[in-house]
């Protein structure tokens, strides 16, 4: 467990599945250098197989006794989807004066799966009881990370100052046990480097007081970012005070730190005549219980009670939070906090990323002595 923990809350009632977060992340981090197939941030449709395909069935995480479970490493063609290139080059050099020119614009792969392959499919019968909602996912920066536990090289670490889980690329040998160990399959193998890579919670941005790119760019303003122990942060209020933000599949035992406001605001179901069935739940609460645990019932109760309260009295702190008035309040990051840590470490440039292990390795003939860290 780290000293402090950064967390993100995503309000699923407001996610419109526009993928702006996905693109923000991709252009910032994963459009190059062997990461092309990776989506550190993706938005999938629930119910659906998700990305990688059927990730919830691929194992990893911990059993009730606290032992790491076996897992399966997804295949790029069938489970992630291969990124393809178009034949731009061929078009540019194609000789159209020749007989029977065929359109030269082609993809160089025939994909069978990809992120968002089953977008908006959902389940049920239209229009009576069909439903789906969007589930944006990033690394959960778990309190007890499955990836970290699975690594036989001590190449994955959890930063003490904010709980961000990172891969030390100098130590990583590309064994991929981390991928089997992560129940969310949010750590990926980079075949170009032969090393594992994952969401870094935009730590170089965080250290400068800026939220992660996915949160900054979100057009629905569904994402809140802050320290869980900071009582002034909206993240703290949503998770700890109102308890309406819940971790995804906490039954995997990793202690995820990305929290979700469950989707409660779906229209009611219709009967055979197309009339509204009053009080019906289009999104089955049972499904929400699978994703967010039993606490989802209390969270739904609180959300509805506060909504009523707001409607009647015009006042509700919780509803005000969820309206997401301004970014300054939604993102409570502390640039000064990181600068102080940098100073204490004698780092000349206070804004440089603080964990030197990640950016610069130990190029040394000295033996790096392994320090066993006690995990709680």
């Amino acid at each position, binding site marked *: 467990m780290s000293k402090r923990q950064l967390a993100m809350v995503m309000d699923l009632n407001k996610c419109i599945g526009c993928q702006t977060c996905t693109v923000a992340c991709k252009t910032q981090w994963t459009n190059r250098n*062997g990461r092309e197939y990776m989506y550190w941030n993706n938005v999938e449709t629930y119910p659906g197989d998700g990305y990688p395909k059927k990730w919830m069935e691929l194992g990893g995480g911990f059993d009730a006794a606290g032992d*790491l479970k076996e897992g399966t490493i997804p295949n*790029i063609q069938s489970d992630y989807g291969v990124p393809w290139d178009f034949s731009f080059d061929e078009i540019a*050099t194609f000789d159209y004066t020749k007989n029977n020119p065929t359109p030269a614009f082609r993809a160089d792969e025939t994909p069978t799966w990809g992120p968002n392959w089953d977008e908006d499919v959902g389940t049920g019968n239209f229009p009576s009881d069909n439903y789906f909602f969007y589930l944006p996912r990033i690394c959960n920066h778990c309190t007890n990370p499955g990836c970290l536990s699975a690594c*036989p*090289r001590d190449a994955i670490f959890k930063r003490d100052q904010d709980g961000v889980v990172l891969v030390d*690329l100098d130590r990583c040998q590309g064994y991929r046990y981390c991928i089997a160990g992560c129940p969310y399959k949010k750590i990926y193998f980079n*075949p170009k480097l032969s090393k594992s890579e994952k969401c870094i919670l935009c730590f170089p941005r965080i250290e400068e007081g800026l939220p992660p790119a996915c949160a900054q760019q979100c057009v629905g303003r569904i994402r809140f970012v802050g320290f869980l122990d900071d009582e002034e942060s909206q993240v703290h209020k949503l998770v700890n005070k109102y308890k309406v933000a819940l971790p995804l599949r906490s039954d995997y035992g990793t202690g995820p730190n990305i929290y979700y406001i469950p989707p409660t605001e779906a229209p009611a179901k219709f009967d055979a005549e197309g009339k509204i069935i009053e009080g019906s739940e289009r999104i089955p609460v049972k499904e929400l219980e699978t994703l967010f645990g039993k606490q989802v019932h209390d969270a739904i109760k609180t959300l509805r009670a506060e909504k009523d309260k707001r409607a009647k009295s015009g006042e509700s702190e919780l509803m005000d939070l969820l309206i997401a008035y301004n970014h300054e309040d939604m993102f409570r990051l502390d640039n000064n906090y990181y600068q102080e840590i940098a100073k204490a470490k004698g780092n000349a440039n206070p804004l440089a990323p603080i964990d030197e292990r990640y*950016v610069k390795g130990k190029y040394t003939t000295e033996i790096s002595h392994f320090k066993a860290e*006690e995990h709680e």
Partner: protein
Amino acid sequence: MNKMLKIFLIAGLSTASFAKPASAINYTGAISAKRVGNINISTISPNDGVWRGVGATTVILYPQQTIKLNDAKANKLNAANLAKKVQVSAIYSSSAVAFRLVWSDPTQDTLSGIKTDVYGDGFAMQLPVAFSDPKKLPYIGMGSDGRPVVVSLMKAITAHYEPNGKGDIEHQLSSSNTVLFGDELKAYKAKVASTGNIPYVKSFISEGFRSMTEVKDGSAKLGMKMSYNPKTKQWTGVVAKSLNDGTVRLGGHGALPVSFAIWDGGKLNRGGVKNLSSWIAVKLQGKGGDDALVRELTATPSGNATAGKTQVEAMCASCHTLSDAKKAANPYMGPNLKDIGGYSTNAYLAESIKDPSAVVVPGYNKNAHKNSPWYNVDPKTGKRTSTMPPMMTDDKMINDAVAYLKTLKAGVEK
């Protein structure tokens, strides 16, 4: 010319014709290294002329079973692995040592292109950084506290790129994200390809698996190559290493301890899932000294294995798995001993029974199985203390237990 001829004659002695010296050491199980004039570390290859007339010794590499890893597919594929035979030839010069390994592998597995669940075949050589007491060699699983090893590794991985390597950010961009076409695009792709590191040859320094750290400052003088013969379905790997570089201090010895490992990518082998030899003595032909090491590493245990079996089953089986039939009550508590006899020395086994905390490798991730701690760590000193109490103090009991443990090993592949 005369001198050259002499060297050639000494070098011409093969393993088979190696004459027993007066001290009557039994060299069975040891590798005999032929003296050559010069080993060119950077250009060494399987077909190098230096290998001419060098005999080969069969070394058995046993499946490593120490800890249970969490890849479901790999666990299934490797559950019933057999030991593998590797033909090892050895040469040495005044400053370097080189080995040629030949082993069979039904498939040539190479990690190339954009793949997430493919693993390359590979091989490695392990040397201690230094050694003096043959009874206190580093732990075979990549060394132990205060007994570091240097591992030289080669994997069949076509091209890999260093993260942040060479400070070249521009060429990290995927070619489809550039604005280039035609010849410019071709030039770009060629430049990207040229920044890749080929082949995948690495040197690591380690004090127990998990502490393994890559040597990146060029201080390891190392050359490795591997090639696959699809007709014979055999890999041939060669490794040459300086005996005195920034990583090891092994010059001046008459014999060296060495161990080898091979990985079968087709069975998803990587890291700990591999076949591994015990410490093998390499006698440097024509050089005196280190007879004690050769004796130690070639000795057959003196104890009574039958008596040892009774003791070990009674005292050890609650925490250690001894065979597929004798599984530990708690599979995560102690290292699996199913193949321990294949890759452990007599001295290591005796030491670990007598003083379990003498060698405690940081191989186990405390977080993965928090209710089954192999060891505890002093938060002040960082010293690891084994959860296992000293089980036997009587030398006869220990010898019997060692004799039994040495019999725990997988059968050998034909």
